[in-house]
């Protein structure tokens, strides 16, 4: 009854239970944080805009991104994954989401930033619907925890219109 094996087993079980409980509490404590992130995205320039040889529209943009996401960080936050997506409707597709740029923010100190960049991923439509197309730029963030549940949310910035002609 009081052999070494039993004691080791009891100790191990207890330790694992405590660790699991602590992980669960750490994950739940994320809910206490009410973040208030702010962001601003501007389309500075349309670098070029053309129809590919196989018929899909492609556009290259220069963006100006300013954001303060520091309030998203809690003690259980490992990193922030953020990306900017262009979202629009076409006659064929009810929703198109095209990721243009993304970044990993490893620490709270670097969560307040301003960056001037052209799109990292190609902005290609399925088809040729981009001339004069209105689209929303959306800043999405995914909070990756040290342990437990992952969170995601977004800020939508509306009202951008692509030019009527290729250039």
């Amino acid at each position, binding site marked *: 009854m009081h052999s070494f094996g039993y004691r080791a087993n009891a100790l191990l079980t207890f330790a694992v239970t405590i660790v699991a409980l602590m992980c669960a509490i750490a994950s739940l404590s994320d809910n206490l944080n009410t973040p208030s992130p702010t962001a601003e995205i501007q389309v500075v320039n349309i670098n070029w805009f053309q129809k590919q040889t196989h018929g899909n529209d492609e556009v290259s943009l220069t963006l100006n991104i300013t954001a303060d996401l520091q309030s998203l960080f809690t003690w259980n936050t490992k990193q922030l994954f953020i990306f900017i997506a262009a979202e629009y409707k076409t006659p064929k597709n009810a*929703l*198109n*989401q095209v990721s243009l740029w993304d970044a990993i923010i490893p620490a709270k100190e670097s969560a307040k930033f301003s960056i001037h960049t052209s799109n990292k991923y190609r902005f290609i439509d399925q088809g040729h619907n981009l001339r004069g197309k209105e689209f929303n730029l959306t800043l999405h963030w995914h909070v990756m925890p040290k342990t437990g549940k992952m969170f995601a949310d977004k800020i939508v910035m509306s009202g951008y219109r692509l030019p009527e002609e290729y250039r």
Partner: protein
Amino acid sequence: MGWIGDGIESIRSMQIRQFLTQAVSLGMIVTSALIIWKGLMCITGSESPVVVVLSGSMEPGFKRGDILFLHMSKDPIRAGEIVVFNVDGREIPIVHRVIKVHERQDGEVDVLTKGDNNYGDDRLLYAQGQLWLQRHHIMGRAVGFLPYVGWVTIIMTEKPIIKYILIGALGLLVITSKD
């Protein structure tokens, strides 16, 4: 001489009884593990509710040996979600992030994925000539995360000897333990 026969008989029946008890308790352990696994499958709607990260393509978010909890709901797939997908002709499922979504009016969806730590998108990993993932390729989306725990399974699949030693030791413990 009758009492000797009785004694042997009682010992034998004791052993059988003890053996049966142990068999039943071992069976209980196995079946309860199975019940938990199948129950998780029902709750999450995913055919594998828990996956172990095997590659470093999502670092620093997910490292090798971390565990992901999957959920498969009817909700549409959106950019930014981390999905687990199977490509035709590949056995091991891949955990990567969705970067492009084109959803048609009838709900059919074309999805492009990329690993956070990879330079380019996943078209090189897809089947020959495949440009997009469809709904049926996707096994679930990651909703929760637990670090390091998956190392147990990685070690056991890569060094089977450790698995056999562990199973042997546990079996020995079950056989030799009393009450």
